[in-house]
């Protein structure tokens, strides 16, 4: 089973040179730590920054410079600042190439649920609905099962959904899966030491196994 950092590390391998990327809160934020230095990519923060830099040193902290998770950040070389309407114009207009975000549930046709649990205080969807409705390429980072052990990869989402038919790929602590255009999760890679049978038993939605499924490789 992968740690959160390993999930982030595996997702980082999906990143391509020249991409503009929006990273959600949680595991997705960690992805930034594993993007190879030789790749030129730009991280977008939906509160109005293109080119997120590393977290600041104590001396560099500026309360007027935060990311969408409200963390203090710095600006990378060549960054740009803009307002929230422009930021979502970028997102909605398809200019952001890759969105990586967390989820509570993903369905086998690519629906995602990650904003609301009935009966619990609803905090809001923030920018998630805009992001999932807009990006061409959406990768979900999440645990394969909930804390109570139930599969988060379902035939249909049971929670209120955030967006329909949008998730392209899922990286969990157990596996890398692609959402098939015809519905179903195509098992692409297993976490080291995790068997296809275990993944099958923990995937409530339709799992598609094609030939030998390789283990993930971490350099």
């Amino acid at each position, binding site marked *: 089973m992968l740690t959160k950092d390993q999930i982030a590390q595996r997702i980082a391998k999906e990143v391509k040179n020249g991409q503009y990327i929006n990273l959600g809160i949680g595991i997705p934020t960690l992805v930034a730590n594993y993007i190879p230095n030789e790749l030129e990519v730009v991280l977008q*923060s*939906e*509160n*109005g*920054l293109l080119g997120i830099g*590393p*977290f*600041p*040193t*104590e001396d560099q*902290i*500026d*309360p*007027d*410079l*935060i*990311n*969408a*998770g*409200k*963390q*203090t*950040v710095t600006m990378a070389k060549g960054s740009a*600042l*803009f*307002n*929230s*309407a422009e*930021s*979502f*114009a970028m*997102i*909605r207009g398809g200019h952001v190439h890759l969105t990586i975000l967390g989820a509570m549930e993903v369905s086998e046709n690519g*629906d995602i649920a990650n904003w609301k649990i009935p009966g619990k*205080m*609803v*905090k*809001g*969807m*923030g*920018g*998630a*609905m*805009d992001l999932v*409705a*807009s990006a061409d390429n959406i990768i979900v980072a999440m645990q394969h099962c909930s804390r109570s052990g139930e599969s988060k990869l379902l035939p249909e989402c049971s929670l*209120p*959904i*955030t*967006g*329909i*038919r949008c998730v392209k790929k899922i990286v969990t602590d157990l596996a890398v899966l692609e959402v098939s255009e015809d519905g179903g999760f195509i098992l692409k890679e297993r976490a080291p030491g995790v068997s296809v049978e275990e993944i099958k038993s923990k995937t409530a939605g339709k799992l598609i196994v094609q030939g030998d499924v390789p283990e993930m490789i971490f350099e």
Partner: protein
Amino acid sequence: MINKTVKNATEAVADIPSNSMLMMGGFGLTGIPENCISALLERDISGLTIVSNNAGVDDFGIGLLLKKRMVKKMISSYVGENAEFERQLLNGELEVDLIPQGTLAERVRAGGAGIPAFFTPAGVGTEVAEGKEIREFDGKMYLLENWLKADFSIVKAWKGDTAGNLIFKGTARNFNPMMAAAGKICIAEVEELVEAGQLNPNEIHTPGIYVQRIFQGKNYEKRIEQRTVSK
């Protein structure tokens, strides 16, 4: 140039009545109109509807207005950082209208720009789409959203001039420029107020036409929610 200067926050918010619709700039606690919020706390008004991306924290920002029970309704995209907010909401003392952040930004922009409605893909197939018109363009589904306007919009900028021109700093810009345009009366508080002609016209983020009142604020606390540093 038309001089928009008022003395201070107290004068700027003096005529905001109960039950009015306000917009307040800011994302989290960044770029919020701290001085105007303090001045509103001194006013004996209630029943406010506030459009703001977030609702502050318990002891800062819009959280202070909530604690004083001045707010009837919040129109926001994310309201997670506030226990008093949660208490009032669960007790039915507060209404909340949750809107996808990009839709919120665009509805406010539309309000200022005279566009009564537009199509967006955000929320299609979700409960956000309930009761809304859905239409297909180029093979993709979109829903129709309406503009948002306010009686007063209250924004915070870094620099401003007496003609109402504003320059923001860092990510403190966020919702402020669109809100400035979407309020019937826009009140701008700035860290540094200069004479008209002192700002470079090419660097202005909000043209003065949108701003009706401006003053130089003081004692900015700029509280940080998630102080995160590099090792």
